[in-house]
């Protein structure tokens, strides 16, 4: 239970803000000095901890996915070096089984001493460009255990009383594909923790050690009090939902459920994952730390104004079934934990949307991560290149507002998309298309945001391979309150000289590619919010003028009949009478469409009579989008949720 505040209001407020500023200064420093392009594009976080390892402050710009994990790794370092920590020491850890995220996220932890006593810890966490393992970038979807994934760093001393331990650092760096950068990032991160130390010691000088220590504890109480008060003001009750990962590559057809039951009771929230699937035979598993983080990040979305620290984490409890996909244990592969992570986050969006309708939000697109590596033969020494890329997509429709267009994935909205010109300079790649994808948004009264498509041509390279970490080609991004799903993810490849494209889908590893091969990745739009037949036709018209929505889909998805007058002048008109008739017609038929025989839908898809968006949005049918083969179990699962999220919310005819 949160303690009462003992500090006077001014000292408290000043310390609270100064703690956050000291962490933000770490962020500033790391951004300006880092080597990893992943860190540079904002995949990092920083934390200030109290002497018990609890998190007292996180930065304003920290990535969501690290929320709620820093205190675990801080405590693990404390356990390992209890009684053996000294001024000037810096420790490293990246262990997901001890509360870390994945091996790529390496944390440096510095104890902060005052008068010989540890009063706090500063932690800098950043995603390194490579930590070894079987594929460039350390994301091998064929891994079933950690030994193919990368280097596991259990707590280790990197600076010993201020002296850099080259031997240890070199051992770590030598197990990666990018040793020079790794050493650079170690220095950048270690220095960042020193920036925080300097600020905390300044506060100690001004306010005294005891006051600062009290402050570190009371800022947590403060956040805990605030969250609990707000939860207490909500009605008690239970909410349940399920979201899916597309498949277990080692198992049969059918999606992998993650179930959550949320109970609000008094001033506490309890999340029970009972009924979630056991761990699966790929890297898409989540250890407890990241499951905890997903809940914290999802919930924090509904408390955007509160600072982040351990006080927030004390407001909820989590129950996970042993050995499930949300409680993976050593040595189960977890590098792709973001897949379950985003499912959990979106499930929490869905449940909290019912609790706080004024902040409601449909499902966002799924993160996708492309890793291509090999040798760049544009120059004579054929250097290794590592082309890692991630794309923005659409976010879910909101209550009274369309979803955000082309935004970074929900695991971290500070994450930046990369410039094509920088990528083309560094890698033998020529991008031929990087544009908004028409009709990608999930239809709704408030539609989802739009996604994009990026198509790239492989130039002269040797030993080049491509891997892809993505999801939601079956568990399509869903709408709520009667809104419709958006569109499937999945990469397609057109080999040099070939006249057709191959669908490689959302999850594959180490596929060889060569000069002249063209690969194309769409991202989904966000799910729709509310019945699309209730969308204001003028908004549909504007979307058509801007090519967000095609004339054809304006009719199919929204029942709005639009005619072009002069495309060159962007002049279109909406036929009000035809729209009324078409909307009435769709209203009559759509429930039956959503329950029609899936095999028939698959056959019509294969014959070209309907397309993927028709199959998904009108019939809630999931196919292998390459062959058109029906996925019966996935369809059954998808339809169950479609009935609940979409059909049940349509007004009776």
């Amino acid at each position, binding site marked *: 239970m949160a303690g009462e505040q003992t500090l006077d209001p001014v000292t408290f407020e000043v310390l609270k803000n100064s703690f956050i500023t000291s962490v933000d200064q770490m962020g500033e420093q790391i951004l300006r000095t880092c080597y990893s392009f992943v860190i540079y594009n904002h995949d990092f976080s920083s934390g200030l901890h109290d002497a018990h390892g609890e998190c007292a402050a996180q930065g304003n710009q920290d990535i969501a996915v690290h929320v709620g994990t820093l205190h675990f790794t801080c405590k693990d370092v404390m356990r390992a070096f209890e009684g053996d920590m000294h001024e000037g020491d810096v420790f490293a850890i990246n262990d997901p089984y001890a509360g870390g995220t994945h091996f790529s996220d390496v944390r440096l932890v510095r104890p902060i001493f005052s008068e010989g006593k540890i009063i706090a810890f500063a932690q800098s966490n950043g995603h390194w460009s490579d930590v070894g393992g079987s594929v460039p970038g350390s994301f091998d979807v064929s891994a079933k255990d950690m030994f193919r994934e990368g280097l596991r760093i259990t707590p280790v001393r990197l600076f010993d009383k201020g002296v850099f331990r080259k031997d240890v650092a070199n051992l770590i760096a030598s197990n990666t594909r990018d040793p*020079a950068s790794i050493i650079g990032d170690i220095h950048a991160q270690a220095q960042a923790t020193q920036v925080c130390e300097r600020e905390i010691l300044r506060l100690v000088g001004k306010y005294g050690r005891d006051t600062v220590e009290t402050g570190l504890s009371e800022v947590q109480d403060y956040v805990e*009090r605030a969250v609990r008060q707000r939860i207490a003001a909500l009605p008690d009750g239970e909410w349940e939902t399920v979201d899916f990962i597309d498949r277990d590559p080692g198992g049969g057809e059918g999606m992998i459920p993650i179930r959550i039951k949320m109970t609000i009771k008094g001033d506490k929230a309890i999340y029970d994952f009972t009924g979630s699937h056991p761990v699966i035979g790929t890297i898409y598993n989540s250890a407890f730390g990241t499951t905890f983080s997903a809940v914290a990040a999802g919930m924090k979305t509904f408390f955007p104004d509160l600072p982040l620290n351990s006080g927030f984490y004390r407001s909820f409890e989590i129950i996970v079934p042993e050995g499930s996909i949300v409680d993976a244990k050593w040595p189960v592969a977890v590098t792709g934990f973001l897949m379950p992570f985003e499912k959990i986050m979106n499930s929490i969006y869905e449940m909290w949307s019912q609790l706080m309708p004024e902040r409601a939000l449909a499902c966002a697109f799924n993160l996708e991560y492309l890793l291509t590596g090999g040798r760049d033969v544009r120059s004579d020494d054929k250097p290794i290149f590592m082309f890692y890329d991630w794309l923005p997509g659409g976010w879910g429709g909101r209550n009274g507002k369309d979803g955000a267009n082309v935004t970074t994935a929900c695991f971290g909205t500070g994450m930046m998309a990369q410039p094509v010109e920088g990528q083309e300079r560094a890698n033998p790649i020529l991008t031929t298309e990087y544009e908004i994808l028409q009709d990608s948004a999930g239809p709704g009264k408030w539609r989802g945001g739009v996604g994009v498509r990026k198509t790239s041509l492989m130039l002269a390279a040797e030993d080049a391979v491509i891997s892809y970490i993505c999801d939601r080609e079956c568990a399509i991004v869903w709408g709520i309150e009667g809104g419709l799903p958006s569109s499937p993810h999945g990469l397609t490849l057109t080999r040099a000289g070939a006249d057709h494209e191959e669908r490689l889908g959302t999850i594959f590893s180490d596929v060889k590619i060569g000069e002249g091969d063209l690969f194309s990745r769409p991202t989904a739009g966000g799910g729709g919010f509310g019945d699309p037949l209730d969308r204001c036709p003028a908004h549909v018209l504007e979307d058509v003028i801007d090519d967000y929505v095609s004339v054809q889909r304006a009719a199919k998805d929204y029942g709005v009949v639009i005619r072009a007058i002069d495309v060159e002048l962007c002049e279109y008109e909406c036929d009000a009478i035809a729209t009324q008739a078409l909307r009435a017609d769709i209203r009559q038929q759509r429930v039956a469409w959503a329950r029609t025989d899936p095999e028939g839908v698959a056959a019509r898809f294969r014959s070209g009579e309907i397309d993927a968006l028709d199959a998904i949005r009108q019939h809630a049918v999931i196919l292998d989008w390459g062959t058109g083969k029906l996925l019966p179990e996935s369809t059954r699962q998808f339809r169950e949720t479609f009935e609940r999220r979409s059909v049940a919310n349509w007004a009776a005819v």
Partner: protein
Amino acid sequence: MQNLRVAVDVGGTFTDICIMDEDTGLIRIEKTASTLDPIDGIMGGVAKAGIDLTKVALFSHGTTVATNALITRRLPRTAMVSTQGFRDVIEIRRANKEDLWDVYKDVVKPYIPRRDRLTVPERIDSAGKVVETLDEAKAREVARILKKRGVEAIAVCFMNAYLNGENERRMREILLEAMPDIPVSISSQVLPEIFEHERFSTTVVNAALSPVVVSYTTRLGDRLAAEGYTRDLLLLHTGGGVMTPASVKDFAARLAGSGIAAGAIASRHIAGLCGYPNSIGLDMGGTSTDVSLAYEGQSRVTKDWYIEFGYPIRFSSIEVLTIGAGGGSLAWTDDAGSLRNGPQSAGAFPGPACYGNGNPQPTNTDANVTLGRLGTSLAGGKVTLDPALARTAVEEGVAKGFKLSTEQAADAILRVANANMSDAVRLISISRGYDPRDFALVAFGGAGGLHGVAIARELSIPVVIVPPNPGVTSALGCLLVDMQHDFSENCMVDADVAEPIGIEAQFARIEREALDRLTHEGVAERDIVLQRTIDMMYRGQWRSLAVSTPSPIGSIADLVADFHREHHREYNFRRDDAPVSFFRVNVKAIGVVPKAELAVHAPTGVRPDPVARREVWFDNQAHDTPLYQRDDLPCGFTFAGPAIVEQVDSTTVVPPGATAAVDKYLNIIIRVKG
């Protein structure tokens, strides 16, 4: 005889006119209400001040016209033509958000909607080679459609054009054949730098603003000429210099933040005159505070800036950090019982509780009134402050909840406000490797003098300078500038293989262009100063650091040594064994405008009497405090805190323990620890 210099700073509420007599160095201020068409306000102010424009040698101007046009989207219909497949670069941006957690808070829409973004087949590769020539038939088709739509400005933005502008230039020719009078900005000319979104965004802003600022400067220039002004109108740009209307058409985006820089320049200049080459400017107004920093006489400059998040304008800009804290910031208690201050503000209306316009919540102004630091009127009596309303607001809003006395509560409000502002100053100073103990704080704006000493003490800054006219210091900044243009080009090469001769040639080429532009603006060659910097980084790092470079550039080894030193100053570590890369070369071209000297006053030995005494609270104790009129304070006068100095546009607080002296420019110099 042309012996007047006039500077005009147009703000949201007031138009400030600063008139300097070159012969005497004396400055006169005219303040007038801003008008819907800012030019009416300017001309009205000029008339009101009785300025004879035939006697004006220099008329300079900081304007918010461009800033406002961007924010309100009242822009001419602007189209963008880009490489096929890249229609949406300015909408995809970097895809990140400013507010990471509030999913209902969006990044604003791009300056050009998707409908007016067209594409043509063409492509340059990452080595600058044309891999696809411009499809001229398609280009003509695009030109025809844009003409039919009646667009008023066009941005041409092609991939990798920073390396080769051939296709862009051809596209511009084709567009101009169809529409000879339309401004066309091409990215390879506006900003030949890598990274498409940043370059395209800058180019789009440049194109969209061109008709806006050309029309504005032409109208203003014509009105001034009609009244007898014979010289060029000088426009303050974001980089901290001025340019003439001759450059405005092609580099309109440089005016996007005109006016933002003026305060920073004034602050730097005043501190310099007082003998402080290192200074922090604190321009505190009613709703926000602008913080800037000068080091060794140079303002800090950044290329990372924007008017609206997500749409960078990559021209060099004086770095100004704006925070939502000012006299009108509200003090409040959040739902977990913590005392907060801002960023919400009572604004100009209803304003602080003591304005009596119905706002019941306490503001910093109310706290200052409650403690006796502010009197009962502002702006020379135009605004009356009601101390009873201020006290009630502080009591109800803060004192009761925290069980504090009214004065304790007011003190708490101000301490939180000052701590927040100190945090902001820390971000621009300490976290960039500057030690505040080496700096002077220049406190200005309406509320700067009220808070300056408290903030300086919080930051261990030893000295506070309060200029003679704190409320109009920004306008003074417009008088103190040189003509200036900033040029940059990528120069991406590793230091261990870099050839000094190649870099020298690149600098020389840029400098020729710089000379041409300044000469075109009428600057004599002897008045031109060129300053070189090279942006460098450790190979593999992602951000570069600008390092001053001699001309000619000298040895690569010296440049690298300078970089290590600068990296250590800024980030507190260096890697002498790590390889270094060059990223970008920059030239700042300055056309020196002879500065008029500010009037110097001699000590008079006069010790003015306080005009009154009143009870003022400091550290929860009431002090019988003398009250001075600023106009009464002569050069050489020294006094100790506690003291309050009032003037029309501002109030200065000298708390107990601090000592103040009036210098020869009539600045009040406060030693904060006495």
